[in-house]
């Protein structure tokens, strides 16, 4: 079996999250850093957070437990060639367009997870880096194969301090998290209609 993995690129992620150790409440960030460039993750707005914050979401209806983070590059035009499973489409859309993994913090759930938890595409979610406590708000925007948990967009990964590398595998280049970080993903059924709290743009 071919085990050699050659690191081609190392992506620097901007860490914007912080954890308040005093009250043990992780600060939930908005969609977090991200860009359309898979090799240059920078700050972006993404979905921001739900209006009303955590309290507006209630109790999670899906909890992945602690699971290894995996990256979904789908929807990011520059993800092509950097992930053998890359797809230009995502199940969810933003303004009729695929949800860009580099720009929007989103999570992936399997069809069974969606059904059993009552979650719908577009519902709010949270992603927490269990090693650092960094958390970000995200939305459920893609459907993955059975058995998968912890699959998150590049922007969600960056927002919780997970760095990404493009490695060469026998299937071609593949973008993976650095160091097999663990995350916890929670999703909140019936919250899709809660608007994001992004500040107005000066356009």
């Amino acid at each position: 079996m071919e085990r050699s993995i050659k690191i081609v690129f190392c992506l620097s992620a901007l860490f914007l999250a912080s954890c308040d150790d005093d009250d043990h409440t992780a600060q939930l960030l908005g969609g977090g850093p991200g860009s359309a460039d898979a090799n240059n993750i920078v700050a972006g707005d993404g979905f921001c957070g739900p209006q009303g914050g955590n309290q507006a979401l209630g109790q999670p209806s899906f909890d992945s437990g602690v699971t290894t983070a995996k990256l979904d590059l789908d929807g990011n035009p520059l993800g092509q060639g950097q992930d053998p499973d890359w797809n230009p489409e995502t199940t969810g859309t933003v303004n009729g367009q695929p949800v860009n993994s580099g720009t929007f913090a989103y999570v992936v759930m399997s069809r069974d997870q969606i059904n059993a938890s009552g979650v719908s595409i577009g519902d709010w979610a949270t992603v927490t880096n269990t090693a650092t406590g960094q958390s970000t708000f995200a939305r459920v925007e893609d459907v993955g194969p059975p058995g998968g948990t912890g699959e998150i967009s590049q922007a969600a990964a960056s927002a919780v301090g997970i760095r990404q590398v493009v490695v060469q595998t026998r299937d071609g280049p593949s973008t993976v998290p650095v160091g097999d970080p663990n995350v916890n993903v929670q999703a909140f059924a019936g919250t899709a209609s809660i608007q994001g709290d992004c500040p107005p743009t000066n356009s």
Partner: protein
Amino acid sequence: MKRQTLYAAAGILLAVSSQAKDVHSPDGRFAVRAEASISLVDAAGNQLLTLVRDTSGDAKVEVAWSPDSKHVVVVENGERVGSGIVAAWKDEVWHKTIEPESQEGALIQAQQAKFHGRLVSEHRKLNGWITPSEVAVQGDMTFSSGAKYRYGYTLAFRQVPGRLDRGGYEEGQLIGKDYHSL
């Protein structure tokens, strides 16, 4: 030949669209209605159960009624990567249940190790009723290494007390068994 051949025509494939499509039970008293959500309705069109709240991402929905009209299985196949199976069964009233993906967990893990890659897509289809409460399922998995695996199993209804999950399904009443390679 096996009885499943006899009942194979019970499965009807629907393309998901915003236009409602009904698949009627053999006795004509009920139907599965597929649109933005998938519902069980009675002959008058009154909704009895919501089987699937959100069909986003579904490309095909397969509906198979048992010959006695007391069981119905719905297979959602996604546009790209994965499928899901929900079902309903009737005693005095209708109940809805789900095939938990944990049942396939050991199979997926074994095949991932065998094919040296993680599961990247999976699809399933129904292959006819074996008995009025058991239906044959065929599936295929594709792994990141490019390898493909075809398999079959039997999905059996069991009318035992189940755990109600957050989606409203009574879990534990739809059991996969007799997994085998094809």
